């Protein structure tokens, strides 16, 4: 059966993994530890969706304020037997879920999602890149962002969570409030949509 794991069996497996880790929980995080360990994660999440530092920092701060006020609902942090963090991090998922709601508030106040422009990030230029290559790469990246902006918001969010934010599928599922299997299906549809919308950018290995 290993080669045909069903979603249910996977959920059960994940649940089992989670439960086993709950027996080896690290102590509840303080607000300060939470800010130190996840400050960059939340900022990166908000920045990728807002596109400029000021808004990203404001939303990030709002997210942490809400988190600090609800520390009791912060999930425990599972570790493995050697006390190392495991890849599935429910605290990160919990925080990004809050950030997602704060982000929705942010856009609701502005009502202009489409006017967002990406703040230019100085690129590290290697000596073997010509100015033309750098410009071409920047243009390509801008087109990819435009492509994702045109996608169904659910597709866009799932793709960003999975591939830009580096969340596991189970974390994406937690953040989006879906089952793991539904999230997996969503990701498949999102990838397909991205390929169609972008032309060649996501077809390298097809």
């Amino acid at each position, binding site marked *: 059966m290993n080669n045909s794991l069903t979603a249910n069996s996977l959920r059960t497996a994940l649940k089992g993994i989670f439960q086993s880790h709950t027996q080896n929980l690290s102590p509840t995080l303080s607000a300060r530890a939470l800010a130190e360990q996840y400050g960059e994660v939340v900022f990166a999440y908000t920045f990728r969706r807002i596109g400029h530092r000021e808004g990203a920092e404001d939303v990030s701060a709002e997210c942490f304020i809400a988190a600090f006020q609800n520390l009791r609902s912060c999930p425990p942090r599972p570790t493995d037997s050697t006390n190392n963090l495991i890849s599935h991090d429910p605290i990160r998922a919990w925080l990004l879920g809050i950030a997602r709601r704060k982000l929705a508030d942010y856009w609701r106040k502005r009502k202009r999602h489409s006017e967002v422009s990406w703040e230019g990030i100085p690129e590290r230029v290697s000596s073997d890149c010509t100015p033309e290559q750098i410009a071409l790469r920047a243009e390509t990246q801008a087109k990819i962002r435009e492509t994702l902006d045109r996608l169904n918001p659910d597709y866009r969010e799932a793709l960003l969570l999975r591939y*830009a934010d580096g969340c596991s599928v189970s974390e994406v599922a937690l953040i989006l409030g879906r089952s793991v299997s539904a999230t997996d299906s969503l990701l498949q549809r999102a990838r397909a949509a991205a390929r169609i919308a972008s032309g060649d950018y996501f077809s390298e290995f097809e």
Partner: protein
Amino acid sequence: MISKKDNNVADTNSENPTETLFERVLSESYVVPPVSSAHRNRLAQLATEADFRSSHPQAKPQASITSRRNPLTNWLTASVLVATAFVGVGIYVIFAPRKASASDALILRVTSAAAKVKTAHILEWRPFNGTQEVYREAWYSAEVGKTGAWCKKGYAPYKGPYTVSYTNLWKNGIAYYYSATAKTVQIDNTQYFPSLLSASDRLQRLYEADLSGRVRILPEAMVEGKRAKRLLIELPNSRPDTEPAFYHESVPLRAIVAVDPKTDLPFRTETEAYHNGQWKLVWVEEAQYNLPIPTEHFDHRFPGSQKVYSVDAQKRFSQQMRATMAKSYRVAKAGRFHATLRYLIGTELGDVYVLYSLPKGSPLPKVLLRDQTTRTWHYMGGGRVGRIVPELEQRWIQPDGERLYTAWFRNNEPMTDREGGGWKIHFHFGEVGGGMSDKVSPVWETSVSGAVPPDDFSREIVWESAEEIASACRNRAEAFRDGRWKADIGLLRIALTGELPVKQRAIFWDSEATRIERTAAELRKSLPSNRAQ
């Protein structure tokens, strides 16, 4: 064999080319800059407060964070806190940031501890030019409207006996300003004098603060042989309230406040100003708390032959000032510099506004107001020399192609005999190397007495500036009454938890606004006669 789908679900995407491609493309297209230190500090402050509140459930919930906006506007927090703490405690107040940073747990504890103080003894010394001069010694009581504060100003080697120059005493709602040198005392019973340890006073000082600044917590260190928590308060651009016009323009200020970890009370603050490319210590304050106040300090029967003035002297002075100088404007020349005195405003509060213009490109002069009768400086610029009314400068006034400036002289010195004798405005151009006591030798010095230009714009200046001040005071009072301060200053509520009912806390503001409104009305009435002259 594991299917592609299952591979995804199992989060093992390292060998899946599709996953790898999407990950590479999207991560490259959504590059995120590193977190700024400002944001990191902001989160740390929020977290500190949250942790503090979780360990102190009785603390009030945190106000919502304000938008980041201009970093310079984030001020009313820590400063206010420290101000609250210090102000409240009589230590020199320096502001607090406007947003959540003001809610720093340490500051909260300091504020809370300061609110419980019964008495405070403050010693302030100013290390001008390498010397250590006691500038002020003060006792404060928390008793509202009864025994207020006593303070001496004088000069001497630090921690040695010193000569008292002035004594200010607030007692039973009356203010006594005693000059030991002139042997005069001015009595002012028209103002509301809350205890300088009261919530009302602390609130006022919070509002007086620029509402923009920053506070950080420094590592603990030994201060004066004692283990201390430390706060760093930074004011990017401020005007140090040191000697008159010690600095021509706004300079960065920073204060390091040492807090006793046992009592949570600040016991020493060192304030530095950034000047000529380096930080320079400008004053130090040391505080002791809950000591019995020496009763002799609150004896208002001052020695020597006394002259007692009421506040009517200030009003008369205001009238005399205008009458004397309402002739024509004067141009003061000093070497290659010149300044044109355009207008002089004396308010019944005793403040004097000197409106003068300078050619474009001219350095800002040090401006002093001098009483020729007693040869003493009666008004201190308080560092507030410069463009105090920039809106007016932009909108209204470019007289003769020159830029208009305003020097505001606060009446914080005793009023002496103003009968007879004139007044002069002194302009000092060039480097200023020290305070009043140093008899700084300016490169260029000139003086001019009086002037009211006959042009119409002078009237506009007076009206606008007076009304603007009145409006600002009104806004303060109204913001306080209608609760707008809650949105501005999360910390203010902490400063206000205690002593006074809300209505009483607003009295000072209300009173001040009313007084300045009267001044504006009075100026309006007086203008036609001025113009007739």
